[in-house]
């Protein structure tokens, strides 16, 4: 007689090792898993709530400067180093992982106006109020050696900005005019003028490396080609732009930080009108830097906040502020797209997360999967009022909140007229 016994193939339920997760046989019959939309909605809502709860962007503050931080530079080959120059001419090199200063040097008399690291990462250039350009070694001097620049170029006028070519030994400075320098020479290879105004910042295009753009004090932005004898084009705005930044992934877009509280993204081929106007700041925008992925940029403002904008969004997706942070003068987005560094008036450099609620460090596979799923859920249900409301809620200091309100009222009134 045949006896029927329940039997299962152990392959279906036995783990190979005890470190494997338990096998869960699944039945995808939709009738067994009803209310999929409602359940996913609940999950999305929870995910957004948790995102807000875990949004703790502030990581560390680096103190050590004895005056306001005026400029910063990322190391071109090393993620953990940062260079910062202050208003008293002091330059500091920081180790970000240890969060400590590794080297201090008196670079200039007066402000350090600009720092830039050479593409190879072995030396860096600084300009200051003492009309000099100095090249320094990245390595700190050995025992007994004096801290001395490799080269010093004495200019005729004050230099206000500096940028280095991405691949060649060429750098550009700005001041009374925009100069292109060869590293080997002590006089500029080219100098561009257009009118008599002074310039506040100059930037090389990281993609089309021969192009430059500068912000002039006559409210204009001027484009140059290093190979041409004359500047290319100029756009005059209603107020002065402080700095600009090229999109590192999209050759012809750049964004400038303007005195009129907003940022403008331009297509360099068509300067008649900006592509996007990014507004949310309530005071002059002082600095801007693109994320290395070219998807977003961060801006620093006189209103003591930092905002992150999507490159094609008119409003910010994030606002960072702390009680102690004063006017933010310079800002950088780290080269691994994870962190934001801000230097402010009150002598501190702050380290922020670029994604406020992101978990730092190495994620386990399942953690990452869950994060991806939650992200997609949030995206999917982003238009639902509850999700939207929670996701977009931000705390603001009282005065900025009221100022923003006031500005909104003013804008409305102007529009009505």
């Amino acid at each position, binding site marked *: 007689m045949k006896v029927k016994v329940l039997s299962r193939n152990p392959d279906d339920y036995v783990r190979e090792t005890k470190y494997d997760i338990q096998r869960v046989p699944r039945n995808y019959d939709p009738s067994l898993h009803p209310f999929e939309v409602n359940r996913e909605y609940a999950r999305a809502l929870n995910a957004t709530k948790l995102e807000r709860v875990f949004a703790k962007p502030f990581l560390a503050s680096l103190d050590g400067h004895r005056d306001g931080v005026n400029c910063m530079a990322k190391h071109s080959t090393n993620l953990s180093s940062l260079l910062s120059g202050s208003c008293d001419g002091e330059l500091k090199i920081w180790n970000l992982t240890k969060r400590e200063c590794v080297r201090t040097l008196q670079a200039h008399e007066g402000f350090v106006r600009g720092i830039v690291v050479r593409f190879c990462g072995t030396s860096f250039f600084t300009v200051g109020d003492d009309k000099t350009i100095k090249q320094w070694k990245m390595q700190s001097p050995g025992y007994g050696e004096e801290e001395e620049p490799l080269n010093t170029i004495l200019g005729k006028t004050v230099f206000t900005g500096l940028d280095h070519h991405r691949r060649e030994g060429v750098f550009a400075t700005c001041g009374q005019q925009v100069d292109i320098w060869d590293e080997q020479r002590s006089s500029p290879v080219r100098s561009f003028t257009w009118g008599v105004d002074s310039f506040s910042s100059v930037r090389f295009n990281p993609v089309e490396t021969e*192009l430059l753009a500068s912000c002039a004090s006559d409210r204009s932005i001027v484009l140059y080609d290093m190979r041409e004898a004359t500047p290319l084009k100029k756009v005059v705005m209603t107020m002065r732009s402080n700095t600009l930044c090229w999109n590192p*992934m999209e050759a012809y877009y750049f964004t400038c930080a303007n005195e009129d509280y907003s940022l403008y993204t331009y297509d*360099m081929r068509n300067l008649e009108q900006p592509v996007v106007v990014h507004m949310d700041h309530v005071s002059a925008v002082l600095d801007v830097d693109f994320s*290395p992925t070219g998807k977003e940029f961060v801006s620093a403002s006189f209103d003591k906040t930092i905002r992150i904008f999507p490159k094609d969004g008119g409003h910010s997706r994030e606002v960072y502020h702390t009680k102690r942070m004063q006017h933010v003068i310079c800002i950088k987005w780290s080269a691994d797209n994870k962190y934001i560094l801000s230097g402010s008036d009150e002598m501190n450099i702050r380290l922020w997360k670029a994604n406020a609620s992101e978990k730092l460090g190495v994620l386990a596979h399942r953690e990452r*999967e869950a994060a991806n*799923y939650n992200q997609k859920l949030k995206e999917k249900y982003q238009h639902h009022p509850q999700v939207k409301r929670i996701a977009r809620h931000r705390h603001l200091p009282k005065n900025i909140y009221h100022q923003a309100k006031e500005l909104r009222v003013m804008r409305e009134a102007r529009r009505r007229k």
Partner: protein
Amino acid sequence: MKLKKSKKIKKRPGINDETSAVSDEMQEEDSEDIAAVPDAIRYDEDEGEEDLNPELKEQVGPGHRLLGRGHRSTRLEERSEAALLVSEFGANAEGDGAKIELSDLLPTASKKAQKQIETLKKSNRTLDTPLSRQETERIHRDVAFQKVATEVSQWKSVIQQNQQAEQLVFPLNQEPSGPKPIEHVVAGWKAQTPLEQEIFAVLNANKQPINNPILTPAEEESIKAMSLEEAKIRRAELQKARALQSYYEAKARRDRKIKSKKYRKVHNKAKRKEMLKQFDEMVKTNPEGALEELKKLEMGRMQERMSLKHQNSGKWAKSKAIMAKYDEDARKAMQQQLEINKELTQKVATALNNDEEDEDDEEEADTEEVLPDFVNDVEKAGDASNPWMRGKLTEEEQEKEQESKMAEEVILLEDEEEMEEEVNEEEKLLREFENRRKQQEEDIVDETALSEFTSIIRGLTQKPEVETIVDNSTPLEEGLTRIQTLEDTEKLQETDISETAEPEVVEIVQADETAKETSTKKAKKRKRNIELKEVITKESRVVTVPLKVTTEEVGEEDMEDEMDQRGLIKEAFAGDDVISDFLKEKRKKEDAGKPKAIDLTLPGWGEWGGKGLKPSRKKRQRFRTKPAQAVVRKDAKLPEVIMSEQRDKSITLHQVSSLPFPFENYAQFESTIRCPLGRTWNSEKTVKKVTLPRVVTQLGAIIEPMGREELKKSQQQKAEPHTWKKWMENNIGDII
């Protein structure tokens, strides 16, 4: 002439970079011309006209002389040569007030210059004034800008590609991980010692690989003949076919084991019908085969008639016959037996069933029912032992012929035959799959509804003009409250509720007043809103789970107990009549929902008014608006249910009130919401695909700005279109 040219160029800035290629070329020529001009001027100043570069002359044209001259007159002071005599300013006229004549300068000029001076003397035309410095600079600028703009525009395709990409992985140019093939490592190395050279000579002579030390030419050829991917696809398809076959076999086996008589009966009936049908077809298509079949049938009938089966003469039948008097079942069984006999002995088409004689036959027939035809095809001589090789999906005429031939040749070349058949079968399988793949091609479109939709959105945001970037960011809702815990988010919601609740109330008050209007309006409004019910287009089916009966049969005592309990409950709740309460409530709701008549009569107008006087009936009738027909309630025919047709406020809070930005209609939006993403509903692979993050960065890697390589890459990608085959390669794993 120069002037004319410059005018042409001045117009240029108006032209976009997207003008045709022809105009671009023109532009470039122009720009070269202009770029050459300053150099020409410099030459002029330094060396005099006779040394002018002939190429430059060509480029600049006959006008160059004029331009050069204009500059010379202004700038000559800067000349560093110690040649005072040469300068026209150095030439002194004799006596005061006298002018310099051309002849004074003549002796110093060369022959060529003299000739030119003579021609100049003859012509009376005055020269055009040169352009001012600002003007020329502007021209240079414009030309240079146009050049740069076109240069930069070549990035457009890359940028667009990146915008549309499902996923971007940074840093951009990552080297593939894993060990490098040895040929790459060895590539730089060369034979130096005589021994090495000798070895290489031998290798060369024997056509052995040198630079690529893994593959011989023959091997390479074989690789070319069938790529790895193709082989993979082939293998996968064969695998699937085998799996299918074994599945069929298993099914057939299971089927065979079913012992239910009823099942068998039904089964056989169906089969018979099927056979009849087949036979009918055969008569039409293949009369010979039909005849044979008929013969078979006849044989079956004869056998049946000869045998004593179904004649009710066996042991079992006799025992039944005894019982038949009292037992209806037995009678029935006997009847059935006779019926079967009758059926089987009937002549021709109706008496087809000949395989019921013994169990084994029957079983085989059963398998026939379930299995596809190929399983039961005549087995080939070669591979009887190998169950895998029996499978055939479709059969073509030619192959039939082949097989028949092979049958004639019989087992002479067993092994070879086996091989051939294998190949044949494989090919057939592959063909089958090719067809299926084509079908799937269409199906994929449906499958990837979500990704398609995202692409639609992206397509919307990415419009032909570069300037129009659509801004879909909304302002942050900045407030003075800080979210620190989950409770805070709850509070946020609550404040939201209190905010939104008010307008709802107003709406309801209005609804009471003018019922009809609002009802239509409401309908409209409802249409405008997206309701959760509509968003969930697929009705959630109620899962019916068979409940295990938990109560045992109730004995009489228990019944009594239960009655007692019921009585107790009745006693306890004697006061409240639940049913009537419910009915009352329902009536109330109905009444509230009914539109009411509105009396607008004002006393005193057109007649006497005052205390105790009522407006006349006529007037009242006149100013009384009749109520509109009440809409039939959904629960009108359901006495036990109250269905509220009013909006549920608690749900509206979570509903989307208006169509969000990138979507064009509700269907689009709803379709994005409809399909779930989680692993409760999707397989692991689809979840992975659906939850792919937009941007992936590597931990601790520096992301360099985009380089020239990307441009080349994108151009290559453009050159080779995305083929269906490629898709198959990537997804073959999913299909199987």
